[in-house]
C-alpha cells in the first residue's frame, strides 16, 4: 500500500483505457444514456401514441426514420423511450442486488457461526429457483409496474454477489490491518464498512456490471412475454408486439433486438475492462 490512492486510480483508469473493447463498450453505453436522457426533448409526445399508418418501413419516411410498428407508433420514439425503461430497471435492479448481496455476504463472513449457516442456506435456496421463473412469478403476483419488475430482478440476482462478498470478507477477516482495527476498539460495523469494504469491493463491482447486462436481458424477456409495465415503452414489448408481422414487416422485431444486443454487449465489454483494470492478477486470461 505504498502508492497513494489517486495514483492507484489513475493506474486503473489507464489499464481500462488500454482495453479497446472496454472503451467501445463505454462509448455505446454513453450513447444509450444520452438517448435515454434526451428522449423527452427529441420527441415531445407520448411514445405509445399512434402517429401514422402502421408498418411504414424504416428509411422511407423522413418524419419517422425507423418506421412505424404494427399499430402505427413511431419506432424511433419507442426505442429512445425504451432506453429509459431498460436503463432505469437494469441499473436499479443490479444496484439492489449488489447492496443486498454485499450486506448478506459480509454479515455471513464477519459474524460466522449460525448466522453464516442461515445466510448461506438462504443464498442456496434462492439459487435453486430458475431466475426467470422467479422474476415472472414475483411480477405476476405483485403487479406489472416498473418498481415491481426492478424489485423482482433485484431480489433474484443477489446470490452470486453474496457468495463473492462472503469469500472476499472471509479472506480479509483475519488480516493484520483488521486485527489492528479491532485492538483499537473499532466497532464491527465500522470495520466492515470503512476498512474491509474498500478492499473487497473491486471484484464485486466487476460482477455487478455483468449483472446489469443480465438484468437488461431479463427485463426484455419479461416485457416480451407480456409481463412488462403496459404504460411505458420497452424494447422487449416492441419485439413481442411485432412478432405477428414477421412475414411482412420483420424490421419491427429486428430493430429493438439490435438495441438490446448492443447495450448488453457494451455492459459485458465494460465488465471485462473493469476486470482487467481492477484485478490485474487475471489480466492475461
Amino acid at each position, binding site marked *: 500500500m505504498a502508492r497513494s490512492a489517486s495514483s492507484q486510480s489513475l493506474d486503473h483508469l489507464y489499464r481500462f483505457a488500454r482495453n479497446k473493447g472496454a472503451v467501445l463498450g463505454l462509448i455505446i453505453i454513453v450513447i444509450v444514456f444520452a438517448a435515454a436522457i434526451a428522449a423527452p426533448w427529441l420527441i415531445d409526445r407520448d411514445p405509445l401514441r399512434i402517429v401514422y399508418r402502421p408498418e411504414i418501413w424504416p428509411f422511407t419516411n423522413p418524419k419517422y426514420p425507423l418506421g412505424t410498428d404494427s399499430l402505427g407508433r413511431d419506432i424511433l420514439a419507442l426505442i429512445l423511450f425504451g432506453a429509459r425503461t431498460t436503463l432505469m430497471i437494469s441499473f436499479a435492479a443490479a444496484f439492489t442486488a449488489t447492496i443486498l448481496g454485499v450486506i448478506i455476504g459480509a454479515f455471513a463472513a464477519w459474524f460466522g457461526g449460525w448466522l453464516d449457516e442461515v445466510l448461506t*442456506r438462504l443464498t*442456496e*435456496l434462492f*439459487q*435453486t*429457483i*430458475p*431466475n*426467470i*421463473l422467479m422474476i*415472472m*412469478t*414475483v411480477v*405476476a*403476483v*405483485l403487479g406489472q409496474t416498473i418498481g415491481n419488475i426492478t424489485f423482482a430482478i433485484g431480489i433474484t440476482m443477489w446470490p452470486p454477489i453474496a457468495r463473492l462478498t462472503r469469500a472476499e470478507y472471509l479472506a480479509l477477516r483475519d488480516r493484520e490491518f483488521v486485527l489492528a482495527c479491532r485492538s483499537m476498539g473499532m466497532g464491527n460495523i465500522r470495520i466492515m464498512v470503512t476498512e474491509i469494504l474498500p478492499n473487497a469491493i473491486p471484484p464485486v463491482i466487476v460482477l455487478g456490471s455483468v449483472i446489469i*447486462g443480465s438484468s437488461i*436481458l431479463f427485463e*426484455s*424477456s419479461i416485457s*416480451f*412475454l*407480456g*409481463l412488462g409495465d403496459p404504460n411505458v415503452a420497452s424494447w*422487449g414489448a416492441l*419485439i413481442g408486439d411485432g*412478432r405477428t408481422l*414477421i*412475414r411482412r414487416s*420483420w424490421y419491427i*422485431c*429486428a430493430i*429493438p*433486438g439490435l438495441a*438490446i*444486443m*448492443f447495450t*448488453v*454487449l457494451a455492459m*459485458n*465489454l465494460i465488465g471485462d475492462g473493469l476486470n482487467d483494470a481492477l484485478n490485474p492478477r487475471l489480466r*492475461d*486470461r
Partner: protein
Amino acid sequence: MKRLILSRLLQIIPLVIGVIVMNFVLIQMAPGTLLDIMTSEQQITDPAALDRMRELYGYDQSPIIQLLKYIYSVFTLDLGYSYRQNAPVLDIILAQLPSTLLLMLVAIGIAVTFGMIAGVIASVKVNTFWDVVISLAAVFFFAAPTFWLGIMLIIVFSVWLGWLPVGGMTTIGVDYGFFGHIWDVIRHLILPALSLGLFYMAIYTRVMRASMLEVFSLDFVRTARAKGLSTTRVIFAHVYRNALLPVVTLLGLQLATVLGGSVVIEAVFSWPGIGSLMLDSVMSRNYPVVLGVFVLSAVVVAFANLLVDIAYYRLDPRIRNR
C-alpha cells in the same frame, strides 16, 4: 462416495421445504385467494357452494395450517389439484416434462459439444485470426436475447427459405408413421434448440478458452513439453483434461435451470413444455401449478448437484483421495 450421495439426497428435504415456504409467502402476498379467482372465472355466486369450496380447498384454515398441510402432501407425492385443467398438478407437469427435457438436453448438448471445440481452438490459436473470430462470435451470442435470436432464425429459415416449421412440436393433422413422426419432431426441434444452444455455447466457449489458457501456463505443461511430447499430446492428454473442471461446474449450474431456462423460447416457438405451462399458470394465477413447478425444480437442482459431485470425483483424483 456412498456417504456423499446420501448426504446430497438428504439435502433435498430442507431445500424443498425452503422453496415451498418461500413461494407460499409470495403467493400469500397476492391480492385475493385462489378461491376468488376460481369463483369469478366460473361465475359461482351461490354462498353454500362457496362455503363448500372453501372447505374443500382448505381456505377456511389459517395460512400456517395450509402451509403445513401442503408440505405434508408434497412428501406424499401429491402436489395439489389444478382446477383449470381439472387434473392433479403432478400429472399436468409430468405430461409437459418430456418435451422440455428434449429441448433443453439437445440445446445443452449442442452448446457443450461445439462450445468446447470452439474454446479449445481459440485457446490453441490464441491471438490469431481464428481466436478473434471465435471470441467475437461468443461475445455477440452472449449478448443477444434468445427470444430475439429465435425470431430472427424463424424469419430466415422459415419465412424466407421455407426450410423449417415456424413453431409447435409436431405437424398437426398429418400421420407420418413412426419414423416420419421422429423426423417431424426433429425438424420442429432444430430452431428452438439452436436459439438456446447458441447462447449457452457462447458461455462454454468463453469458459473453456479461459480455462485452457490458464492450464497452459502451469508448470506441469512445461514439463510435458520438455519431455518432448508432441503438441497434440500435450493439448489433449494434459491441458484439455485439466481444463474440464470449470466446464463441469457450469454444466451442473445449467442442469439446474433445465426446467426454467426455456420459458421464453417455448413462448416463441409454441413449444408445449414446462415453460409454456408456467407462463400460462402465472398469467392465470393458477398457483398450485406454479408451486408444483418450483418444487420439482428444487428436486432437479439437488440431483444436478449430485451429478456434479460424482463427475468431480471421477475427473479429479485429488478430490477422490481426500
